[in-house]
């Protein structure tokens, strides 16, 4: 069953991953491949837009957790945006707001990255 997709685009010079569908222990590898692909290309300012992410299990959060230190050690960040309440609640239950920059809107992430690079 194909119930999860990751699409990549560039907006204002930043790489954005659009997540759609349900992220669980089966589909987490697709997110992992997309993140690894960007990091391997030294693209370390990454925005993950979760507007169409309907569901996340801890395997999905584990992928985010596994790469954040690498990206930050290279001077970048992964910023998460546009989460619905149900998805945000899972991040919140696990204490992720202490680790990750979770923003209301993709534009906020673009602004923050632009300020830091400007």
């Amino acid at each position, binding site marked *: 069953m194909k119930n999860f997709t990751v699409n990549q685009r560039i907006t204002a010079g930043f790489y954005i991953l659009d997540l759609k569908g349900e992220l*669980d222990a089966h589909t987490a590898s697709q997110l992992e491949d997309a993140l690894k692909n960007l990091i391997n290309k030294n693209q370390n300012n990454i925005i993950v837009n979760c507007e169409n992410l309907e*569901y996340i299990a*801890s395997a999905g959060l584990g992928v985010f957790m596994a790469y954040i230190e690498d990206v930050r050690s290279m001077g970048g960040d992964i910023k998460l945006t546009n989460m619905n309440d149900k998805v945000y609640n899972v991040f919140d239950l696990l204490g992720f707001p202490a680790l990750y920059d979770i923003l209301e809107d993709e534009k906020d992430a673009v602004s923050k990255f632009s300020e830091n690079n400007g």
Partner: protein
Amino acid sequence: MDSLTTYHLTIPATTLRLAEVRSFVEKHGKEHGYSAEQMHDVRLAVDEALTNIIKHAYEKDSTKKIDIELEINSEKLCVTLADTGKAFKVRALKQPNVLEYARQKKRGGMGLYLIHTLMDSVDYYRKEGKNEIRMCKNRG
């Protein structure tokens, strides 16, 4: 108290089938009038417990089977998952320290905390070579 309605599903131990089980649980829960929010919690808890069985009890051997039993009445909804894999050790259920996890690049260990946080009761049984986890959510 009205009688429990019981539904069964057996799946091979593969993460390919997680979405199907989430849909199975959600469909029957909604039929019995449970809210979308309640069913989100139940779906996530069941997903996490299945993932633990697939990865740890069966070590990703997809020839093994997992039995799922869903019991529902107007007061509560219970899901029991049964496997014949390695016995399951329940560790401390504190909220994971995600800052420490990120430093160690550790990924697991979050599922059990979620299960116990999202459900009203969680019980473990080991009998005759079979492991069972029974998770219940009160209608509230």
